[in-house]
């Protein structure tokens, strides 16, 4: 990574952290459990993208490690969003009544 890229990356990181802080601070404690499963699923999605980048032309051991990582991340994405959805539905149906 070039030094210019590093500054860009640090900038992105700080902006994301600031945005994250403000967004998450406004989530009521009521929703902290689904919040946690959602952010976890979101961060896992990014790992899948990264593996597509690294997967190209890798050595065999690296590919095997990558494959395990893909499996772990995908289960996290699927499980994370499903459970978030399930919890939010439980909160939602009360509003409908």
């Amino acid at each position: 990574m070039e030094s210019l890229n590093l500054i860009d990356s640090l900038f992105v990181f700080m902006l994301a952290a600031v945005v994250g802080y403000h967004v998450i601070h406004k989530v009521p404690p009521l929703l902290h459990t689904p919040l946690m499963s959602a952010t976890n699923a979101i961060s896992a999605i990014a790992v899948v993208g990264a593996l597509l980048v690294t997967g190209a032309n890798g050595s065999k051991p690296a590919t095997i490690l990558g494959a395990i990582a893909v499996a772990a991340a995908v289960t996290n994405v699927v499980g994370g969003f499903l459970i978030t959805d399930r919890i939010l539905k439980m909160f939602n149906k009360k509003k409908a009544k």
Partner: protein
Amino acid sequence: MDCRGWIAIATPMTHMPQRTALSHAFGALAAALVGIAHYYDHATTVTLVERVALALEVVLGSLTVTGSLLAFAKLQGWVHGTPVAYPGQNAVSLVLAAVILVLAGWFIADPAATWAFYGMAALAFLFGITLVMPIGAADMPVVIALLNSYAGLAGSATGFALDNNILIIAGALDGASGLILAVLMSKAMNRPLLNVVFGRIEASTAASADDVYAGKVRSTTAEEFALLLEDARRVVIVPGYGMAVSQAQHAVRDLYLALEKRGATVEFAIHPVAGRMPGHMNVLLAEADIPYERMIEMDTINPTFETVDVAIVIGANDVVNSNARASDSPIAGMPILDVDKARMVIVVKRSMSPGFAGIPNPLFAAENTLMYFADAQAGILDVVREVKAL
């Protein structure tokens, strides 16, 4: 659907903390493995920035994997939930952390030192265990939030190593949310974050259980319980981890419906660290179809306890321990739900055993408190039957 999706659908809500811990382990494992694979393929070409990012990613990722798995095992009951303490445990953790730092520094200075990189990764896995081992089950809300944060930061570091903005952003979001929750949780226990991670609650010397309880504890029956509820206009239910253990949320819902039918107003007082993860009680009550307008946060409901006719404490202990107001108490200063200000308090509990803090609870011996010794689910169902028969 893969197996994980099935877990998400099938997991009972009472097992949410375990499931969350497990998903942190999965996320961190992915980050750690990507880091190791990246180094394996590019050991000779990684730049300085990439090496710093890789070190962060692999250390945070690895310790989160084992830490989360251990948290999972503790919550699942596979490993005993009590804090495991041995002399010098903090020294061991600190030495381990120092060695990891030295190895990381070595690797950053010399990328050809593969032994430093792999040694660092291996010790980080070990560090996750020594970090979580001494932490008791009741402190799990903080630990789970903290591990969430680490998993996110590991993902963010992956982004730096691979020069990928999406990863940096998603990881930072996850890291921020975890850290905010961890700080909120430790505030709710009036303990600094570091104290939760490195300290443990010392056994109390203030008062023994015998002094506090001597002859003052009065127990009650389902029948009397129901009679006390007969004319209650305002009832507040305080759920704790005991409700989750006993899967009593549906029984509690039945009680709520029976009381509302009699014209009483029923609310639920939620302490921020009730249960084993942030928002644990809310999710359980929502599962049992309790409207979320009835779940009231501690700061909102505390000033109104004087107007509560009956407060029902179900499987909660430390979060209602009036000992927290005494300055010499091990939990001094921890904000609690002021249930003792209600006209009548009924505590549903299996026995007089102390909570996580291991100290007696003066609330149980208070003049306006009755103890209802029962398993939460079976006991509440008995009360519901009596209330319906009124």
